[in-house]
C-alpha cells in the first residue's frame, strides 16, 4: 500500500473523528423542559427489583441519566428508581409520566398502584421480556391516584440480557403535553427505524433487480447484499421480543453489521473500477476469522469481544471513504458524494460504538439507525446521477444522430438535385452532339462534296462546331485549367491542318483560379481559343505556341502581326470582336493582358498580379 494511500486513510480517520466530535458536542439538549410538565433529573436508585427495594434505606440519590454497571452474564436483572413529586397545577386534570429513554422493560408504580400498561403478560423468570430500549414510554395517571403533594413514583426496569439498565430524565405533568412529546419521540425513534427498514428492503430489492438486468454492473449486487445485511441488523428495532437466544442474536447482529461494511467495501471497488486483490483477500480473511471467533466467544466475554470486533471492523470500514478519496479523481462529484456519506455513516456508527462501549453519559444521541437512510440517499443519488448521465448521453447521441440524418438528408437531396441537373446536362450534351453537332458535321461534309464552297460559310460552321465543344465543356462542370486546355488542344488540332501550322504545347503548370472557378476557367479557355483562332485566320503563322506557368498563359505566333489600334477601332469584323473579347474576358478574370504584335508575330501574355492569391 502506498504512502499516499495511508495518508488518505489517516485523513479519512481525522474527518471521522471531527464529525464524531461534532455529533457528541452538538449543543442540543435532547431532554429539554416542557410547559406544564416537570423534568426530573434527580432520583433515588435501588439496584434490585421493586419487591426487594421496599425500605427507604435501600435507595441512594443519583442524577439522571443513570446507568447500572453492565453485567457479563445474562439473567434477570432489575433496578428500581424512586421519584417524589407534587401535583402540578395544570389546566387539565389528567396527568401522566413520560420516559423518553430507558432500558429495558419498565414497570411503573404510583403511590403503591401499578400504572404501567404491560401488567404481568411476560414471563419474567424465563427471559421472555421484550426489549423496549429503543422506544419511549408514556402513561397517564388516574386523577384519583395523584395526591397534591408527596407522590411516590417507582420505576422498576428489568432485562433478561447482559449489559446495563438505564434511565434518562423523567417527565411528569400535563398528559396532553407529554403525550405529544411521546409521540414525537416515537416518530423520531421507532417511526424512522421502521421507515428506514422498509426503505432498506425496497432499495435492496430494487438493486437486486437492477443487478439481474445489468449483470456486468456488480455494484448493484453488492448494494443489494449490503441492504440485506442491514435488514438483518435492523430487525431488532422492529421486533422487540424475538424468541432467539440472546447470545446468538447478538452475534448474528454483529456479523450482519460487518457484512454490511464488507459489501460496501466491494461496492466502492466496483465504483472506482479497481480490484485491490491483496487488500480484499486480507479483509475477507479478517471477516471470516473474526466472525467465527465471535460465534465461539463465551457469553461472559461477549461484550469485550464485541467491542474489539466492532473496533477492528470500523478500522477496515474506514478504507471505503479512503478509497473514494484516493482513486478515480476524475469523477469528483460521485466520489465526493460517496466520501461524505460514508464518513457520516461511519461517524453515526462510531457514536453508537462510544455509547455502548465507552461512556453512555457523554453521548447525547444514538445515530446508528440513521445510517440506512444516508445510504439510501447516497444510492438514490448515485442512480439518479447515472440516469442523468445516461439520459444526457442519449440526448447528445440523439441530437448528433438527428444532425447526421439531417446532413445526410441534405446531401441526398443535394445529390438528387445534382443528379437531375446532370441528367439534364447529359441530355443537352447529347442533343448538341447528335442534333446540332451532327447537323453541322453533315453540312460541312456536304460542302466538302460540292464543287462550289463558300469559305466564309464553311469557316463559320467550323467555328460553330468548336463553340459547341466549348459549350459542352462548360456543361461538364468544374475542371482544372490544364485539363480544359488539354481538351481545347484536341479541338484546335484540325484548325491547324489546312495551313500546316505547328501547335507547340508547353502547358505544364497552369494558374489555379480556385476550387469553384468553373466560369473563370472557361473564360480562360475561350480567351485562348479566340487568340488561336484569330492567329490562324489573320496572321498566317507557321507555329503557334501555347505556354503556361503558375501565373501566366502565353499565346505566341510567328505570323505577320496586326495594328492593335486599327483592329480595336474596327467594329463589326471578326478580328475586332476577337480582340475586344480578349480584353473583356481579361477584365472579368481580374488578370492583365499584354499584347505585343509586330511583323515577327504576336505575343499575348495573360497574367495575374503577384498579390492575387492563385
Amino acid at each position: 500500500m502506498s504512502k499516499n494511500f495511508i495518508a488518505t486513510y489517516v485523513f479519512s480517520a481525522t474527518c471521522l473523528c471531527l464529525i464524531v466530535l461534532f455529533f457528541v458536542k452538538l449543543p442540543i439538549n435532547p431532554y429539554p423542559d416542557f410547559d406544564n410538565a416537570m423534568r426530573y433529573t434527580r432520583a433515588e436508585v435501588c439496584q434490585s427489583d421493586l419487591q426487594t427495594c421496599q425500605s427507604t434505606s435501600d435507595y441512594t440519590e443519583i442524577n439522571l441519566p443513570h446507568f447500572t454497571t453492565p453485567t457479563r452474564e445474562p439473567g434477570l436483572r432489575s433496578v428500581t428508581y424512586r421519584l417524589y413529586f407534587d401535583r402540578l397545577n395544570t389546566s387539565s386534570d389528567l396527568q401522566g409520566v413520560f420516559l423518553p429513554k430507558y432500558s429495558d422493560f419498565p414497570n411503573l408504580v404510583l403511590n403503591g398502584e401499578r400504572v404501567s400498561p404491560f401488567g404481568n403478560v411476560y414471563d419474567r423468570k424465563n427471559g421472555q421480556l421484550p426489549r423496549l430500549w429503543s422506544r419511549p414510554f408514556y402513561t397517564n395517571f388516574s386523577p384519583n391516584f395523584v395526591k397534591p403533594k408527596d407522590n411516590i413514583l417507582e420505576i422498576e426496569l428489568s432485562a433478561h440480557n447482559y449489559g446495563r439498565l438505564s434511565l434518562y430524565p423523567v417527565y411528569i405533568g400535563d398528559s396532553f403535553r407529554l403525550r405529544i412529546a411521546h409521540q414525537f419521540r416515537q416518530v423520531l425513534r421507532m417511526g424512522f427505524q421502521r421507515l428506514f427498514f422498509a426503505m432498506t428492503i425496497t432499495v435492496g430489492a430494487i438493486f437486486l433487480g437492477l443487478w439481474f438486468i445489468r449483470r456486468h454492473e456488480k455494484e448493484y449486487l453488492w448494494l443489494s447484499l449490503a441492504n440485506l445485511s442491514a435488514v438483518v441488523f435492523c430487525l431488532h428495532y422492529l421486533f422487540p421480543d424475538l424468541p432467539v437466544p440472546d447470545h446468538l442474536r447478538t452475534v448474528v447482529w454483529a456479523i450482519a453489521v460487518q457484512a454490511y461494511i464488507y459489501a460496501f467495501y466491494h461496492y466502492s471497488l466496483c465504483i472506482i473500477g479497481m480490484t485491490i486483490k491483496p487488500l480484499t483477500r486480507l479483509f475477507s480473511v479478517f471477516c471470516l476469522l473474526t466472525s467465527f471467533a465471535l460465534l465461539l466467544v463465551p457469553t461472559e466475554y461477549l461484550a469485550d469481544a464485541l467491542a474489539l470486533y466492532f473496533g477492528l471492523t470500523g478500522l477496515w470500514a474506514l478504507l471505503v471513504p479512503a478509497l473514494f478519496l484516493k482513486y478515480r479523481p476524475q469523477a469528483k462529484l460521485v466520489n465526493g458524494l460517496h466520501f461524505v456519506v460514508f464518513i457520516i455513516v461511519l461517524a453515526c456508527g462510531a457514536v453508537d460504538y462510544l455509547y455502548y462501549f465507552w461512556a453512555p453519559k457523554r453521548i447525547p444521541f444514538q445515530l446508528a439507525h440513521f445510517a440506512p437512510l444516508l445510504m439510501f440517499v447516497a444510492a438514490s443519488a448515485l442512480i439518479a446521477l447515472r440516469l442523468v448521465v445516461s439520459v444526457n448521453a442519449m440526448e447528445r447521441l440523439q441530437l448528433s444522430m438527428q444532425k447526421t440524418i439531417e446532413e445526410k438528408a441534405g446531401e441526398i437531396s443535394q445529390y438528387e438535385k445534382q443528379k437531375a441537373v446532370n441528367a439534364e446536362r447529359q441530355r443537352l450534351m447529347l442533343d448538341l452532339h447528335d442534333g446540332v453537332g451532327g447537323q453541322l458535321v453533315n453540312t460541312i461534309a456536304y460542302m466538302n462534296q460540292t464543287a462550289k464552297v463558300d469559305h466564309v460559310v464553311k469557316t463559320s460552321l467550323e467555328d460553330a462546331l468548336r463553340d459547341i465543344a466549348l459549350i459542352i465543356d462548360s456543361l461538364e462542370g468544374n475542371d482544372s485549367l490544364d485539363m480544359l486546355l488539354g481538351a481545347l488542344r484536341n479541338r484546335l488540332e484540325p484548325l491547324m491542318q489546312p495551313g500546316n501550322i505547328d501547335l507547340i504545347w508547353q502547358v505544364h503548370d497552369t494558374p489555379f483560379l480556385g476550387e469553384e472557378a468553373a466560369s473563370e476557367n472557361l473564360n480562360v479557355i475561350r480567351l485562348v481559343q479566340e487568340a488561336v483562332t484569330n492567329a490562324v485566320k489573320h496572321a498566317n503563322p507557321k507555329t503557334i505556341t501555347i505556354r503556361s506557368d503558375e501565373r501566366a498563359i502565353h499565346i505566341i505566333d510567328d505570323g505577320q502581326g496586326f495594328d492593335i489600334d486599327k483592329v480595336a477601332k474596327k467594329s463589326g469584323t471578326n478580328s475586332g470582336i476577337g480582340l475586344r473579347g480578349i480584353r473583356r474576358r481579361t477584365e472579368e478574370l481580374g488578370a492583365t493582358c499584354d499584347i505585343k504584335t509586330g511583323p515577327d508575330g504576336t505575343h499575348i501574355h495573360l497574367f495575374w498580379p503577384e498579390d492575387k492569391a492563385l
Partner: protein
Amino acid sequence: MVVSKPKLSVQSLQSVLIVEDRAYTAQSLQKEINKNAALHVVGTASDVATGLAMLQKYKPRFVLTDLGLPDGSGVEIVRAVKATDWPCDCMVISIFGDENRVLEAIRAGAKGFILKGDNLHDIGEHILEIARGGSPMSPKIARILLKLVGPDRNTHRSEASRQLTTRELDVLQLLAKGFKRKEIAQHLEISIGTVGTHINHIYEKLGVRSNVEAIALAVSENIISNGS
C-alpha cells in the same frame, strides 16, 4: 458487291461497314475510306436495325458506327460486333471523341473512335492504325478515366486505381493535359510504341476487366462529382 474473305494482312482489301444516319457524313466517310488502297466500304446503314442486318450479311472486317442513331444506340452495334465469330473490329464515329458514351462504347468493346469532324484526311490510315492496336485516347476520355482511378473514397475507383501501374497513371495524366503520344514519350523518356501499349493497357484494365455496367455507373457518378 463482292465480299472479300477477312484476312488480317493489311495489304489485302478489307471490308468496312459504316453505320451513320446523316447521309452526307456517311458519304464523306465512304469516299475518304475508299481512297485508302487497303480498305473498301461494303455498305452504309442509317440505323441500328439495318446496321445489324448488314453486319451479318457482309461480315465486314471493320465496322464504323455513330452512337446517336434514330432507332437506338450505336453501342448495340458495338456489342453485336464483339459477339461475331469472325475477326471484326468496331470503331465509334464521334464529333470530338470526348463524350462519355464514346468511353462507354470502348468499354462495351469498341476498339477506338474515328473523328468525323471537319477533316477526314487519312481516315483509312486511322482505321488501320487502330486495328493495329493504337487506340486513340482524347484528353477528355483520359480525364474521365483519371477521375475513375483518382484517389477517392469511392471503392470502385480505388479498386480501379489499384489496377493501374504508376507509369500508366503518368501517361493518363499527361494525356488528360492534352499531350500527344510523341510528347509523352519524350517527357517520360520511353518510346511512342510503349505509350501506345500503356494506353491499350489502361483501356483493357479499366474496360474489359471491370463490369461495364458498374463502370458506366461510376462514370455517371463522376459527372455528378464534377458538378458538385
